[in-house]
């Protein structure tokens, strides 16, 4: 097959694989203090923010890249990356959507995320992040009326320094680990949300991350704070063009829930997964952590991970407040040569804390999937419990599925339950469905959606249908 044909075939599978031709402002290539100062300077950051970054960078220089994960990858040359790339038209920040480069508007329209007022998605506020910069945030005025702050984190640093200073790095310390520390040094943009005391956020907040420029790492930083008694549901989506090179996306996401607050965080991750032979695709190395700081607080992670060449992440909950609740619902799908090592950590510190983990892993083609999860109940977390259910579904006989639970219970009044299953879609099941008129692919999609149902049900309704379709598309070509 010639390359042109291959490209066309790939496009059929991954409809977000286009590139936007746009002029960029970039930081000089490589990683050093000057580049960090460049980023801080272009974002007009106060001194304390630059200090935060430099401190992280000092620490980063002493850290070694981890290598304990199941999916191995070729060594990344951190000096060969661009750490900042943004459309030139964003240099003088456009004041309204009318001033925004039409190419950017067109890009988001093509992605199904219209930003213009008349076309906006109903009931969903969107922050659109393009490479290293947020290009637009919708519904801000409406949210402001209720005291909700929803804006790019680069703006929050300038306009709400007291909140950012207090909470940034409070869940993921700058010294945490290699990728998190790298992010703390070079992060560019992401979303910031603050829900004031007692407010139930009236719409879904969401961020749409788009990687466009080549040779560029995306270092997203998101910070969500739910003040006492508040509620917010947040969703992020991600896509990237098809490229032969691997691109790094190393995000840090921190959630803080105070007394009686609840944060529901959903991810539909559809980064470019690479081609059928495993060439290209995003390295999705992400640190996500939520702190149930107050009593009776709740943090719930739901993720649908279908993209990326390698997904490596463990959205976690630290259950510090008494009676706090942590949940993790996950669907991870790997096809062709994709690899994933994902799961969660539930750290029980408070009394009467509860956590629930539902993980559904599906592997097809030559892919490899690992569920890795830690449940740690500390000695003072009396009367706490965890329930883990971890199911794997295999398609074909060239893929792998692994389950690696780490269980630590230091309190005799608390308990942990773990259930795991591994199954295969049998030829008989496929034949049965086909006899009833479904094509092999429709049959797989139906069976897999059934397998994932418990998790799909957790997604906000507007996205559940999309996610369901995505599940089917991700597995196309895996049978027959």
């Amino acid at each position, binding site marked *: 097959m010639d390359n042109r044909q291959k490209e066309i075939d790939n496009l059929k599978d991954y409809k977000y694989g286009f590139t936007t031709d746009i002029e960029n402002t970039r930081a000089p290539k490589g990683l050093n203090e000057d580049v960090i100062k460049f980023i801080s300077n272009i974002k007009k950051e106060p001194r304390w923010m630059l200090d935060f970054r430099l401190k992280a960078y000092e620490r980063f220089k002493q850290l070694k890249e981890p290598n304990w994960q199941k999916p191995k990858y070729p060594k990344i040359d951190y000096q060969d990356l661009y750490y900042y790339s943004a459309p030139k038209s964003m240099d003088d920040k456009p004041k309204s959507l009318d001033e925004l480069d039409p190419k950017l508007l067109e890009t988001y329209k093509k992605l199904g995320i219209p930003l213009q007022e008349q076309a906006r998605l109903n009931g969903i506020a969107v922050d659109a992040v393009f490479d290293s910069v947020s290009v637009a945030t919708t519904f801000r005025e409406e949210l402001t009326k209720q005291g909700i702050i929803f804006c790019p984190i680069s703006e929050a640093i300038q306009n709400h320094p007291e909140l950012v200073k207090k909470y940034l790095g409070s869940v993921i310390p700058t010294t945490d680990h290699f990728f998190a520390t790298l992010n703390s040094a070079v992060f560019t943009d992401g979303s910031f949300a603050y829900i004031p005391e007692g407010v139930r956020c009236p719409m879904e907040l969401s961020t749409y991350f788009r990687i466009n420029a080549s040779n560029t790492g995306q270092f997203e930083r998101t910070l969500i704070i739910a003040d006492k008694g508040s509620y917010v549901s947040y969703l992020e989506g991600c896509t990237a063009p098809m490229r032969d090179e691997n691109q790094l996306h190393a995000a840090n996401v921190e959630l803080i829930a105070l007394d009686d607050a609840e944060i529901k965080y959903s991810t539909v991750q559809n980064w470019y997964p690479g081609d059928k032979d495993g060439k290209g695709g995003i390295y999705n190395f992400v640190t996500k952590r939520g702190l149930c700081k107050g009593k009776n607080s709740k943090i719930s992670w739901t993720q649908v991970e279908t993209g990326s060449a390698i997904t490596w992440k463990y959205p976690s909950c630290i259950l510090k407040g008494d009676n706090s609740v942590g949940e993790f619902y996950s669907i991870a799908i790997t096809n062709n040569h994709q690899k994933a090592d994902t799961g969660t950590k539930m750290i029980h510190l408070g009394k009467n804390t509860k956590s629930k983990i539902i993980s559904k892993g599906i592997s097809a083609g030559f892919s490899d999937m690992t569920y890795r999860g830690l449940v740690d109940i500390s000695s003072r977390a009396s009367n706490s419990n965890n329930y883990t259910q971890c199911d794997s579904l295999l398609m074909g006989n060239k893929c792998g599925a692994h389950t690696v639970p780490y269980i630590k219970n230091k309190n005799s009044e608390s308990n942990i339950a773990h259930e795991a299953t591994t199954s295969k879609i049998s030829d008989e099941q496929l034949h*049965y469905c*086909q*006899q*009833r008129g*479904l*094509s092999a692919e*429709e049959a797989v999609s*139906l*069976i897999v*959606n059934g397998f994932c149902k418990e998790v799909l049900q957790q997604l906000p309704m507007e996205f559940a249908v999309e996610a369901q379709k995505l599940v089917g598309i991700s597995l196309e070509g895996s049978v027959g």
Partner: protein
Amino acid sequence: MLKISKLNAKIDNKEILKNFSLNINPGEVHAIMGPNGSGKSTLSNILSGKKGYDVSGEVLFEEKDLFEFETEERAHKGIFLAFQYPLEIPGVNTNIFLKTSLNAVRKARGEKELDAIEFLKLVKKKSRELKFDEDKLNRQLNVGFSGGEKKKNEILQMSLLAPKLSILDETDSGLDIDALKIVADGVNALRDDKNSFLIITHYQRLLDYIKPDYVHVLMNGKIVKSGGAELALELEKKGYENFH
């Protein structure tokens, strides 16, 4: 409607069907009886499109080469197989499965797909006719169903999809007498001068309720004797041994 000529089938180099021929015209009900291992299920598998068999000979369905069509295309054209062992599909709601199946078939036949309300109305009506427990429609497909419920579910699907040729592979085995009658009623309701049936069974019992036009005795991959409904009774009396 269905014309099988000199069909040979092998699996793992073992010959199962040998020079098998059979002709089914529109509106006819044929019964194939035979002992274990005579090739009954292989026949239904091959007609439905199951892979893994080494096949020669010719099968025409409405004058067209059946082997040209994928399993689902055969279903679209009106071939239905009631499975001997209906499959369980965990996580998939029975209603959703039935609706997906029906709409896939309707779409392929150029008919309008049913919306949720139209479908529910239809499935409820059919369930009542077949005394199929409606609660089961909201359960996972065949998961935790008794043997009889699984078989009734097959007949419900048959009734929904309105096939031209229905193949019942030992649908009667494991059924109590009430369930047997319900299955037979389901078949008889579909009987007319256009729809045909191929009923594969060990026992004569089902044929008390579904009167066949022809009975064939299958032994060692071949039809050794054909006759009318009375042949089944004879077989029941004498046993398969005497047909060697």
